[in-house]
């Protein structure tokens, strides 16, 4: 009983001074860190890059620039849903150097900077992505971070997000054993 009274008094007296107390955790001074930003690697199928392993002008001769059904890259052709009515491989992939992409101007763009190519049509997303509003970054909110390229999340040949299986719903309180296990 004595203990109880002591504890109660302690609790109450301490409660009284809370408002004026100063947190003991000290404030940390941060120097503005150098913003080191790097990108995820483009998600190539293993062994597929460089493309010139197969697409070799010296071996294969001239490029056929006519839009047509190819005899290879089946899995890409069968799941090509990116304005497929109007576009085909060489609208983005460079005809003369298959190891790079190209803009509508014809300028070459490496795969590591494919966002420039995407940004030609999706200007609003490109703008938001550069601000960090669209897309995802991981690492440090105040420093070094890795950002995802458009193609790390969107399949460039079929960019719409596929639906996912959700993780399990919470247990309803009525189904939870609250007191004992």
């Amino acid at each position, binding site marked *: 009983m004595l*203990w*109880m009274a002591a*504890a*109660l008094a*302690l*609790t109450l007296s*301490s*409660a009284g*001074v*809370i*408002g004026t*107390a*100063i*947190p*003991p*955790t*000290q*404030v*940390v*001074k*941060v120097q503005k*860190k150098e913003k080191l930003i790097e990108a995820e690697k483009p998600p190539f199928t293993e062994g597929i890059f460089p493309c010139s392993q197969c697409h070799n002008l010296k071996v294969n001769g001239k490029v056929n620039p006519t839009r047509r059904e190819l005899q290879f890259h089946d899995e890409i052709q069968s799941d090509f849903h990116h304005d497929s009515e109007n576009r085909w491989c060489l609208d983005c992939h460079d005809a003369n150097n298959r190891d790079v992409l190209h803009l509508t101007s014809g300028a070459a763009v490496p795969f590591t900077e494919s966002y420039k190519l995407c940004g030609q049509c999706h200007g609003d997303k490109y703008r*938001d992505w550069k*601000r*960090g*509003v*669209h*897309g*995802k*970054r*991981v*690492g*440090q*909110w*105040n*420093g070094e*971070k890795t950002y*995802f390229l458009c193609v790390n*999340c969107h399949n460039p040949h079929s960019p719409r*997000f596929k*639906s*996912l*299986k*959700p*993780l*399990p*719903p*919470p*247990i*309803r309180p009525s189904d*939870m*054993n*609250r*007191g*004992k*296990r």
Partner: protein
Amino acid sequence: MSACENSGGCGSEVVDPGRRDVLKFLAVGATMATGAACDLEGFFRKSFRELSPADVRRMTTGWERKYTRKYGKTVTVSEVGPMDGVKFGYGLDLSRCIGCRRCVYACVEENNQSRKEPQIQWIRVLEMDKAHGVDLNHSDIYYDAATVPQPGKFYMPIQCQQCDDPPCVKTCPVGATWKEKDGIVVIDYDWCIGCRCCMSACPYGARHFNWAEPSLPAQEMNPKTHVLGNRPRPKGVVEKCTFCIQRTREGLYPACVEVCPVGARKFGNLLDPESEIRQAMDTKRVFILKEDLATHPSFFYFYAT
């Protein structure tokens, strides 16, 4: 004193498990009456905010030792404080979230929440009808479709909004919960008496109660902890999202931001106009939840498209 209960062998078995922990001191009294050596200092310590940094360190070192023994791995308990010139803000893009609940479980794992009985999840994802807009009365947190998003539905995750005028803090009768300089509302688990006033005061349902000893399998325990965050909780206390205090005070993004597969979650310093959260707020349509209650959340919902 909960420290005392956690260590086991302190005679805490004397307490009827059905009793409220508000009676904890009785247990300690009983313990001491039986003469068992126990963490008296933990029981008689001052409120967290009255402790000197040295006292806090001494306390956290004690917990580190105890948790390390209990979970069989090296556990650290950080007490690092807020950064100067930083006020945390969180953004959630409602036009992106697909309701996959990846964030829910990443949070559970990062923050050592009780897995079942009681099952505690700091993030709740609400499924709502696009036709009705944000309408909490017609929302479902138990949706269990084979795939998400479902046609005609949208999803709204809710967690602690880290209010600038937090009703939970105002209501706590013992001052066990308060708002830190960087905006995080924290709880001192050793000071909380488990009255749950804060839970009824919170308009966002963000606070959760450990009805029983939390179930946290040792192999799943995240050993990187913070004293006001994800360190293991005793039975009978309240807990909630802390913006991953153990991560964000080290400069890292919260776990839910990193796991979200659609990039719906944004986090950063509200005082830095270049931060992702400020960029979202400055350029998108933003709203806060239950604005009419004047809680002034640090959590902003927005539509990027």
